[in-house]
């Protein structure tokens, strides 16, 4: 079989796949290192300090230096650690993230594969890394690691639901141009390209504000980022499931985290902000050149990434029970309601402004629910009553 790549015809599909994969690997590595550097610089500026300044001009080579250092470290494994679990865990965290890049649409025509079930594939694949976290936690033979792994699993599974539901809510009402003779437009698509093309004039941000916010929160939780970085809460369990890893294995976890951040930001840009189509689609007759589209996508993904860093520099960490009750009691019911409303809009063919209005109302409900939960917390478990005669030891 042969296919076409970059204008070359008749290329063997395997070679084509390999080229695309290698491009993605290269792209991902470079961008992830840039993200690590960017985070350190941006966080530093939030904290009134400078960040890396010495290695290379303006500290640009800091990530390279870190990578070289990590590669040169000794690869340790605790004696009582389960060898297979311990050593396979980094792969199970890293590879699914990497697989997620298959469907990410960078620019029109530039992606590894266009899948009809793109979003489903994305959600399914990123869910695998939770297994990797548990394996890392359990296989490390370390109590802190185990606690971190359990927390990561609980958190990852719980926040998977709002994430999926938010993507579902968007995918439901996407307008897809139909091929049929009637010219009627269909609704509902999991194909990322179609989702982007449907936002040529108005991004989904306008129709689904609540879903955007919930997606942002759920993405923060899936990425284990503050305020949901309990599994790697440095001041508590000191590194969580990864505390026993060193050298290349640890760097794989680290890279996986930033690669996941990159994917989430690109998906966010595609699904909510219109990807390469908005506002380029406003000029229907004159599609923008590829480089302009790439810049557009970069800007939108960069916005997401900047918000993630901003939140990290400003906000304390949630406790595990607060995190759980937040998703199960607040986010999930809101998302169910949103899916219900989207469904009603589909079935009864209501104008899309209904979506915006209900979305804004939903945002208000979310803010009020959080405020109420914070100001009127449920009574804490009662502290142990003082034992008579026995003073605190």
């Amino acid at each position, binding site marked *: 079989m042969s296919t076409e790549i970059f204008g070359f015809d008749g290329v063997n599909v395997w070679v084509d796949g390999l080229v695309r994969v290698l491009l993605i690997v290269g792209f991902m590595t470079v961008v992830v290192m840039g993200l690590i550097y960017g985070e350190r610089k941006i*966080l530093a500026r*939030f*904290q*009134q*300090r400078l960040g890396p300044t010495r290695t290379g001009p303006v500290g640009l080579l800091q990530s390279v230096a870190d990578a070289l250092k990590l590669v040169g470290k000794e690869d340790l494994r605790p004696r009582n650690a389960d060898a297979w679990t311990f050593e396979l865990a980094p792969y199970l965290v890293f590879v699914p993230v990497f697989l997620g890049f298959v469907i990410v649409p960078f620019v029109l025509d530039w992606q590894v594969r266009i899948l009809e079930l793109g979003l489903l594939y994305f959600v399914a694949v990123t869910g695998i890394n939770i297994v990797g976290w548990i394996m890392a936690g359990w296989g490390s033979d370390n*109590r*802190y690691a185990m*606690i971190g792994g359990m927390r990561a699993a609980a958190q990852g599974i719980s926040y998977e639901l709002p994430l999926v539901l938010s993507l579902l809510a968007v995918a439901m009402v996407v307008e897809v141009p139909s091929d049929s003779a009637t010219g009627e437009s269909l609704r509902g698509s999991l194909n990322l390209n179609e989702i982007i093309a449907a936002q040529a004039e108005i991004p989904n941000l306008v129709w689904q504000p609540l879903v955007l916010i919930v997606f942002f929160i759920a993405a923060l939780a899936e990425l284990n980022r*503050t*305020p949901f*970085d*309990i599994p790697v*809460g*440095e*001041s*508590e369990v*000191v590194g969580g499931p990864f505390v026993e890893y060193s050298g290349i294995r640890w760097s794989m976890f680290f890279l996986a985290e930033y690669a996941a951040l990159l994917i989430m930001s690109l998906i966010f840009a595609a699904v909510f902000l219109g990807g390469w189509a908005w506002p380029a689609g406003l000029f229907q007759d004159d599609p923008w050149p590829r480089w302009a589209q790439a810049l557009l996508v970069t800007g939108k993904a960069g916005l997401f990434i900047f918000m993630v860093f901003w939140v*990290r*520099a*400003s*906000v*304390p*960490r*949630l*406790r*595990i*029970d*607060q995190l759980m009750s937040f998703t199960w009691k607040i986010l999930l019911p809101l998302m169910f309601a949103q899916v219900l409303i989207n469904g009603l809009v589909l079935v009864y063919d209501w104008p899309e402004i209904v979506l915006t209005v209900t979305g804004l109302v939903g945002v208000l409900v979310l803010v009020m629910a*959080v*405020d109420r*939960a*914070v*100001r009127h*917390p449920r*009574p*804490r*478990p*009662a*502290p*142990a009553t*003082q034992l008579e005669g026995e*003073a*605190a*030891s």
Partner: protein
Amino acid sequence: MVVDTSATEFETQDLLLNVGPQHPSTHGVFRMVLEIDGEVVKDLVPYIGYLHRGAEKLCENNDFRQGIGYMDRTEYLAAHNAELSYVMAVEALAEIEVPERAQWIRMILCELNRISSHFMFLGAFGVDVGVFGTPFIYGWRERERIIDLFEEISGDRMMFAYFRAGGLAWEVPLNFPERVREVLESARQGVKDFDGLLTQNEIFIARTKNVGVITADDAIEMGMSGPTIRASGVPLDLRKTEPYLQYDQIEFETITADGGDVFDRYLVRLQEISQSIDLIEQCLERLEDGPIMPEKMPRMLRLPEGEVYIRTEAPRGEYGIYMVSKGGNKPHRLKVRSACLSNLQALKQMCVGQYVADAIIVLGSIDIVLSEVDR
């Protein structure tokens, strides 16, 4: 495989989690063993003594000038307050009258040290709660300014050995009032920064409200002191109840809160910074020229027989010096009454029944410095 489902509950085992002695959150070498059931702490056993250097015994072999250095090192974050107790004890036993200028300068330096110690607490507490580094850097930025001022005055950034029995070691620099006012300006801004970052933050409130509660009666029973007991509603401030130096000449209110939880301890300390800024302003107005040591001070102090228990309000609580002298130039017995040790006794009571993450926060809110706990 046949699974025995006759048992109605899972048989669980409590996990023994060892926190410390090397741990980013324990503010020094402190070890506690938590017995946890899932995420709830069922028992807590603290182990201290990693930083025990025998300061009390060493002071028995050092005369009344050399001992000042040891006092610095027992409370390195608030060294002026530690030195103050010691020199006040010596002055009480030897009946030395401290000139007024020296008293006002001592008050200014002690209050400045209180500000810098509380900023340190706010920074470290922010890290405990989980904000990555922003409050930490804010706190250290303010501390740097204050410590630079200390370096200009006494030559040392943290362990000054600046107070002497009778007054001060040497005169302060000529631009002392202006420098102090500069530092106060930036401290005011620092308080605003912290207030804006943390006090109204919903996640912060959710993490700290109703966590680690200790009632006023329990706090008195455990002998706690300082902001920790004032956050439980007990108006015990040694500057007000048993005034020393010139604290009865200036006006201020005792800051209390009524919840006794972690949030209140944070709030009391934040407000105390503002209060200290105000106190220093009042002291600067009253500062006049004059001597800083009494005229006839012997080189080598020999104290008559006697004993005294001097207590002052250090940033962490009541820092007391119990000195017994049997003549001679060295104390017969020097006991350092450490505020942090007494506050730390209540840790178990505050943490049992809370979550593991809360135990870390409660430990941070008591604001211990291990060198004072262990001496």
